[in-house]
């Protein structure tokens, strides 16, 4: 059975899961302009940007022969809850036979979740499934850790591109992990790769830290967010995201491990007291969290026509004032020209630098 999945963040990790379960894995191509165009052409016009990219990704996976697509769903007021169904229907209309299996939050629909797990498990034993899931989870967490570290040090790299090169190498190392032993080996190799990156010394007071918040797909996937972290790194800023896939898994699937996210949600209570879909509430919490942790600015990524993030955007001017932290909202859509957003990002970094300098002088 040829299986595929959405291209979102650490695909090396998802690949691991399906490989371990004996599936033939089709990794969808990294989203390109073609993916976006295919998606936009075959999606409802009013659907949000992530929907369109996913649509394009699924079509490309089907072109490569995918027969089964595993994805995650959502519930609550955000339209993303319908998306899996519409994706499946659109694929059928286009004449592709692929079946789409959507994992919802387990507590929301136990039975459906269990059936999906059985579907995923196939002929494997539950023990094997558990082992594969656990290995995937560990690969995912370690990759997330590396990515987080790289975006913290890459503004200070001596040679342009060395952090990006390291990241490509690290992903290759983890692609060859099949058991605990391999994991330990990949870990030590990764340490070496990271040590190789030459860094210049920068005083703590000259460092600029920018937090990235927004809708989960555009936050996680650099190919559709203009590579925002790399852009900011190249402008000399450290970055950290509000979302890392392993943290999301912690929150959704592992009982007792989602404490961090709950703390973030609690911080947002003052501004949004109910969950309005997507990650709007978390994002508000993350603004406060980033400020408390001494970040200098925040970039907010909003897919065009994303309702939850539109709500976040409207609260932002007020929060920016109250917490005295510059926040830049960027709207992402099919448009591929970067110039316009680059102007905003550069001006934003200039603003933060000047603000920082003024603070140190006074």
């Amino acid at each position, binding site marked *: 059975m040829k299986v595929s999945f959405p291209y979102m963040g650490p695909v090396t990790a998802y690949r691991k899961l399906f490989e371990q379960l004996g599936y033939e894995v089709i990794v969808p*191509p*990294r989203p*390109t302009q073609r993916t976006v165009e295919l998606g936009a052409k075959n999606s409802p016009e009013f659907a949000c940007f992530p929907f369109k990219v996913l649509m394009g990704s699924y079509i490309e996976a089907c072109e490569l022969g995918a027969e089964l697509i595993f994805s995650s769903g959502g519930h609550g007021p955000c339209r993303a809850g319908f998306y899996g169904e519409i994706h499946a229907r659109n694929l059928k209309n286009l004449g592709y036979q692929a079946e789409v299996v959507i994992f919802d939050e387990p507590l929301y629909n136990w039975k459906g979740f269990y059936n999906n797990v059985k579907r995923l498990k196939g002929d494997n034993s539950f023990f094997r499934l558990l082992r594969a899931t656990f290995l995937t989870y560990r690969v995912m967490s370690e990759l997330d850790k590396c990515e987080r570290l790289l975006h913290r040090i890459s503004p200070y790299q001596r*040679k*342009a*591109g*060395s952090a*990006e*090169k390291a990241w*490509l190498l690290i992903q290759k190392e983890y692609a060859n992990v099949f058991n605990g032993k391999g994991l330990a080996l990949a870990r030590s190799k990764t340490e070496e790769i990271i040590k190789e990156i030459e860094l210049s010394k920068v005083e703590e007071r000259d460092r600029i830290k920018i937090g990235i918040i927004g809708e989960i797909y555009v936050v996680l996937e650099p*190919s559709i967010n203009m*590579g925002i972290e*790399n852009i900011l790194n190249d402008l000399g800023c450290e970055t950290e995201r509000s979302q890392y896939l392993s943290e999301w898994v912690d929150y959704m699937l592992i009982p007792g491990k989602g404490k961090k996210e709950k703390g973030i949600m609690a911080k947002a209570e003052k501004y949004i007291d109910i969950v309005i879909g997507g990650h709007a509430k978390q994002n508000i919490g993350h603004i406060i969290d980033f400020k408390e942790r001494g970040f200098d600015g925040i970039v907010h990524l909003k897919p*065009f026509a994303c309702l939850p993030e539109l709500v976040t955007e*409207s609260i*932002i*001017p*007020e929060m*920016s004032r109250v917490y005295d932290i*510059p926040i830049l909202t960027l*709207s992402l*859509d099919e448009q591929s020209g970067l*110039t*316009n957003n*680059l*102007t*905003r990002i*550069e*001006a*934003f970094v*200039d*603003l933060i630098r*000047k*603000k920082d300098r*003024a603070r140190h002088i006074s």
Partner: protein
Amino acid sequence: MLSEVYVGIDVGSVSTNIAAIGSDQKIVFTYYTRTNGQPLVAIKKGLYRLKDELGDDTTIAGVGTTGSGRQLAGVMVGADIVKNEITAHAVATTNIKPDVRTIFEIGGQDSKLILVKDGMVVDFAMNTVCAAGTGSFLDHQAERLGLPIDRFGEMALKSKTNVQIAGRCTVFAESDMIAKQQYGFSKADIIMGLCRALVRNFINNLGRGKMLQPPFVFQGGVAANTGIKAAFEEELKQTVTVPDYFDVMGAIGAAILAWEEVEQKGCSSFRGLDSLKTDFTPSSFICEGCANMCEVIKVEANEVTIAVWGDRCGKWKENIKQVKLKEII
């Protein structure tokens, strides 16, 4: 008399502007021309004009570029600094009017609102997805009404009645204008109505949730339009200043930034006016080295690649340094 000037080049969507300041930061030269889709030609023309006007005794001691075409322009002339237009505009305005708090900048393809406090940018906004309220739209409407764009403002001020026009979207604005025209309203009234609509749109869209405080400065190509200025003053109930060099403020900002940069580094990387004779050919390709599939843009001069951008891992940028070394050897 031998003198040094610092040059700023602002390559925008519609116009290309050049300004030169002396070492005393006085403006000695300004140039405004339509880009007409050929920024490189426009820059060349402007720089030759500068040479003609200032004479051979003047040397260019530093160059800065800004505007949406800043990167290519920067490579072409060997700029000391390449800066985004928001920072450049703010630098120029705070230099001319140090107590400014709010800057409205309306150009060909975009409009910006910049909030300043103590000479520092504290917040800004740029129009997002719509051309309503920018120079291009006004151009288009002037053409439709058979009116030269430079008489647009003058005409608007003759308006006597208030005509409501939707400013949210150019499509609505245009159909509203046509409807009002068929009802028999005068051209002047319709144009003033459009000016008011654009200002309303600007303030609603860019100023949303922001405190706009005086003094206000209005600049960019559209500031030539006295109708828009009047509409701003009407809406804000405050005086709005249009600086003398409103149409080249970005270039002035770039010149000031170049001056600061050269002061710091001690020398300029300007290639010299002779280098303008070289043909610069930009091209792009998709690098298939890894899954990133970067769109790499390269600029060649005399078939030698002199600049590359877009490659995340630095694979193509590395090659350039080697070429440069060989050239020197």
